[in-house]
């Protein structure tokens, strides 16, 4: 069994999840501090990829990153760097599709934070940095871990946007999802099913590990937080 789709899927999912972890937390934190109007608009915009069918997301991405469009062309002429139809194109698609999951969960975690903890900390002289890392984050961490789990799981299953922007080139851009679809369509059911099992196994291992971390963390810090 050619294992390329396995490695490709895992690296795409890992890179996307890490990227979305930082971008998601950063935007969730700053937007939770913004005015009601900005919060409302940003929430809608940033949750949009969740609502749109993945193929539409892929289509829109192609229209931005394609070689004839502004961004795509810029990279092509200046760096001879193709943004589409490569394995990392799948990263763009996956990041966009999983971002809302991380963002909304992190947002929920930050919103649930009891501000009086921050106020008390400030009044006894603790710096804002200390407050963020030593008080706010530990409180919100279970929610953030949950968001990461969701994002990674979704990343592994991402198909529609990836297919549009990265195509399906065996050995080059194939992911587990697009590979399974291909096998299924060409009546290679048995192999397809084997891959489905592989996918489920990875997901199970990762989700189990993350759940373990989450419960350990919760009991150690007695935090009631979470999604």
């Amino acid at each position, binding site marked *: 069994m050619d294992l390329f789709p396995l490695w490709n899927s895992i690296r795409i999912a890992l890179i996307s999840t890490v990227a979305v972890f930082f971008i998601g937390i950063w935007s969730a934190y700053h937007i939770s501090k913004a005015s009601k109007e900005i919060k409302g608009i940003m929430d809608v915009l940033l949750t949009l990829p969740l609502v749109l069918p993945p193929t539409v997301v892929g289509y829109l991405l192609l229209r931005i990153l394609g070689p004839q469009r502004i961004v795509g062309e810029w990279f092509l002429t200046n760096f001879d760097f193709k943004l589409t139809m490569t394995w990392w194109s799948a990263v763009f698609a996956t990041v966009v599709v999983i971002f809302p999951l991380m963002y909304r969960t992190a947002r929920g975690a930050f919103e649930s934070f009891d501000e009086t903890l921050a106020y008390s900390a400030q*009044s006894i002289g603790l710096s804002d940095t200390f407050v963020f890392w030593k008080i706010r984050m530990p409180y919100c961490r279970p929610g953030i871990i949950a968001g990461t789990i969701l994002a990674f799981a979704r990343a592994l299953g991402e198909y529609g946007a990836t297919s549009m922007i990265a195509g399906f080139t065996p050995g080059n851009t194939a992911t587990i999802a697009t590979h399974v679809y291909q096998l299924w369509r060409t009546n290679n059911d048995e192999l397809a099913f084997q891959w489905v099992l592989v996918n489920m196994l990875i997901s199970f291992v990762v989700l189990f590990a993350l759940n373990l971390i989450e419960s350990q963390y919760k009991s150690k810090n007695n935090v009631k937080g979470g999604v």
Partner: protein
Amino acid sequence: MSISVDIEKNLGDFRLQVNFTAENEVLALLGASGCGKSMTLKCIAGIEKPDKGRILLDGVTLFDSEKNINLTPQERHTGLLFQNYALFPNMTVKENIEAGARREKNLEKRKQIVGSIITNFGLQDLLTSYPHQLSGGEQQRVALARMLVSDPKILLLDEPFSALDSHLRFRLEQEVRDLIRSFGKSVILVSHDRDEVFRLSDKICVIHNGKVETIGTKKEVFANPKTRQAAVLTGCKNISPIDRISDQKVIALDWGIELELNEKIGEAKYVGMRMHDLCMDAGENTFDCQVVEIIENPFSYTIMLKAQADAQAFGWEVNKETWQQIASEKIKIGFPKGKIILLNE
């Protein structure tokens, strides 16, 4: 140690406009929920910003809208205590207190002050516990310890006893009273409980809808609340609008009775009479009243009386023994001139 507050802030439904000072004493901000008293405290602590005004603490300007001064909460050195104590849930008791001592850069000294406050508050056995494992009273002690170890210039207590059961309250109130005494500096206490306010404070500032209605020593304020709202907040339950008959005679419209006063009516629109100030042998302002309801309290009775059949009732609080001796359907009751409170709107 003195504090001077003169601020304004738009709060949507109303405008907060307060102006008071305190000098090495306990000042209570008494008012109903949502009147702006907690907001005032937050403005002093620096976690909320007034629209304009000045706040001075010990000669240091914490806030001045004209000079564009607005110190961060960290720079203000205030001690802020919330109802929920705000203990950091992910830290042990020891770590919580140590967090409060972080201003002290010298590690040796820091260890020392942490150690001594732990001893003072008797927290030795709780050091490795987490906040959720502590009782309400223990949590308060830790919160107070953490606050004091940060060496604040003023204590700001936001409804410190609201979260407690009544039997705990008494004991913890005592602890806080001792603490305040030994603190020696100014304390601003926010509460809606008039008894607690009376017990703990020296000065009272009554706030209603963002405005200061009355300010003075606690005795002054209770004796002479000045406004109807302040009277209500200080626990006066018998209040009636009045019409002027002469300079020192009015008719209480709700109760349908005429009252003679000790002083000139002035601009007053209401009279108030505390329930326990009514008495049977007042001499003056006495009326034949019909008992309409007898309400039993744990240690007293509240007798609802009507002087006129078509008027509203007013209440008389009397202890149980006395009532048992004089109980009847008709009572002669009097409004002593000296206890009549004249109130503006």
